[in-house]
């Protein structure tokens, strides 16, 4: 019984020996960690989901980043860049492992991307200790306030809600019912909303969180909302849940009875087509819409449509801006001589970013201070689209 163990163990030893000879360097004692810099392209890690439920967001972000690179001949700050893609996957584990690989194996100079807040929280330590800047282009937990190497070109999770709260308090004559996906982003969104909503004297009917992920049938929640006597509904959903929620909101007769307000993710991108006419009349708050009228946006929309055949989403726009931020920072950090540290310093010194969403500046915690827009889903030329109704002010 013992002798039979031999072959496997020999195989293990052989395999190990093989890999040993194939690899150089080591974590301990090797000491040959090279700093990126002089010569060769700058390595940029693009950490977005390419599998799992967030894949479509990842696709948008990848396309947005690539559009910027294509517009600039694959150069950022006058230096050629090499983009290394890593799959964030669905969970904090998979995202963390991918970030680990970018930083420790590919030895990238900067990283951008990150869809999930859980992944963002999970990689904070990694970027702070390895002193590599992460220019996030979506995930943005409210708790992330004191990082040195982490920047976000998107927003903070509670901002879409906060931008909308005061407006809804004013508009709605009666109480508002809250339904949100039961995870941190949902809680943050409702918390942000209620901050400005309560301050403006809004009245809350009830606040219910639906299991996430895993809720496909919203009927029981909608039934409760329906019988609560509320005048309006504020929701937070994205992706597949947003599609089901909007359709069922219509099917179970809430549409037309109870106004629906939501954070912009509800009707952003491909989900809107899937929701179909059920989405008509939904009001959302977002930091961007493809129909914004400015020159940069016009060229961005054109280039993005040419590349993907789709209208850009806020995810694509934020990723486009991340490339822009890196462009500015690498140039300021000295182009070819730029390294992680100098790029990070330069990012912080960027005074303003011209963006398809309008010009924005850094907040104290490394997120954009930007204008928020109220949008309504309308039918435009036979297709459904978010249409900007008015500005909601700056946050």
């Amino acid at each position, binding site marked *: 019984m013992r002798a039979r163990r031999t072959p496997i163990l020999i195989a293990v030893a052989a395999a190990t020996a093989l890999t040993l000879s194939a690899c150089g360097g080591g974590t301990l004692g090797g000491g040959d960690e090279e700093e990126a810099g002089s010569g060769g392209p700058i390595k940029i890690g693009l950490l977005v989901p390419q*599998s*799992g*439920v967030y*894949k*479509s967001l990842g*696709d948008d972000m990848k396309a947005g980043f690539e559009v910027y690179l294509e517009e600039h001949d694959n150069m950022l700050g006058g230096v050629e860049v090499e983009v290394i893609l890593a799959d964030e996957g669905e969970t904090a584990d998979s995202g963390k492992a991918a970030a680990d690989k970018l930083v420790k194996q590919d030895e990238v100079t900067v990283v951008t991307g990150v869809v999930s807040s859980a992944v963002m929280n999970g990689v904070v330590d990694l970027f702070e200790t390895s002193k590599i800047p992460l220019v996030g282009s979506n995930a943005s937990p409210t708790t992330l306030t004191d990082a040195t190497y982490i920047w976000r070109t998107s927003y903070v999770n509670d901002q879409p809600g906060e931008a909308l709260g005061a407006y809804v308090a004013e508009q709605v004559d009666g109480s508002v019912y809250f339904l949100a996906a*039961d995870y941190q982003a949902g809680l943050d969104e409702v918390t942000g909303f209620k901050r400005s909503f309560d301050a403006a004297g809004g009245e809350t009917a009830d606040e*219910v*969180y*639906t*299991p996430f*992920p*895993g*809720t*496909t*049938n919203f*009927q*029981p*929640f909608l*039934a*409760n909302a329906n*019988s609560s006597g509320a005048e309006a509904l504020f929701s937070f959903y994205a*992706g*597949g849940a947003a*599609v*089901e929620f909007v*359709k069922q909101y*219509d*099917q*179970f*007769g809430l549409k037309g009875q109870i106004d629906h307000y939501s954070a912009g993710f509800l009707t952003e991108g*491909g*989900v809107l087509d*899937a*929701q*179909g006419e059920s989405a008509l009349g939904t009001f959302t708050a977002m930091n961007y819409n493809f129909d914004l009228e400015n020159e940069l946006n016009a060229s961005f929309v054109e280039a993005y449509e040419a590349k993907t055949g789709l209208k850009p989403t806020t995810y694509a726009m934020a990723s486009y801006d991340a490339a822009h931020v890196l462009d500015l920072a690498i140039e300021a950090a000295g182009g070819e001589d730029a390294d992680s540290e100098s790029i990070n310093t330069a990012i912080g010194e960027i005074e303003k970013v011209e963006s398809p969403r309008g010009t924005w500046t850094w907040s104290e915690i490394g997120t954009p201070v930007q204008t928020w827009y109220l949008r309504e889903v309308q039918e435009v030329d036979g297709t459904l689209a978010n249409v900007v109704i008015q500005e909601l002010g700056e946050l």
Partner: protein
Amino acid sequence: MSGWFNAHFVSMVDGVAYGLLLFTLAVGLSLVFGMMDVLNLAHGTLYLAGAYTAYALSDGSWLGLLIALVVGLVVGLLGGGLLAAAVAPLQGRGHLDQAALTLGISLIAAEVMVMLFGAEVLPTAPPSALSGSVSVLGHTYPVYRLAFIGIATLLAALVYLAFERSSVGALVRATVADRDMVRTMGVDTRKVLFGVFGFGAALAAVGGVLGAPIIAPGPGIDERVLVLSLVVVVIGGLGSVRGALLGALLIGQVQTLGVALVPSYAPFLLFGAMLLVLALRPQGLFAPGRA
């Protein structure tokens, strides 16, 4: 009381629709396990394949739905046949190997479906005659779900009668009770395996075609549907058609009426209900073939 009833009427009706959908999924899983002792973790994949079929083929017309149903049936039969062929060499190796194999197959199939259909959830429109909502006792309710209750009730009744009354059903029940005995009677259990597997798979795929407007196809739906079916099957008792039906209806209510009553405990209701049942009756509510 009538106020309470009024407030939760829609939830109860919807629980029936949801439960019947679960039944079409669970019954195949239950029989394959009960009869052939095969734990098929690729069962959710069959639903997903059916739902994607509906998405791809239904165009709002009755004909579209009919074509989708026929194609879904074929997809299901083929899928079931392939799965049966895949697990056939594993006979006598226990549930764990079957679980690893079928889970592996479902991971591969899920990846293939993402390649074909993308990673978005793809809501599927019912025939336009059935879209929209109607008022039921003063409550707005989707027409399609009402129609689904009708069709699924018919389907459930057929399955139930086939298994409880027909001679094939008698053979199936005998196989659940004592496989070796049936084998010694000269019945080719391999044929039974393929037959039951194909039948269960076809039912799951047809459930997917009909269920697509209710649980839309998308990544991860296969796993969710699988877990729901497993819960139903375990609650009902492995290998029992009656158990699968009652388990499905019970879980349907738990997931609708239960959620409406205690929304803040929604994430715990499904597994809480299962734990409660298993704590009282570890063999399920209707375990067949045992005293």
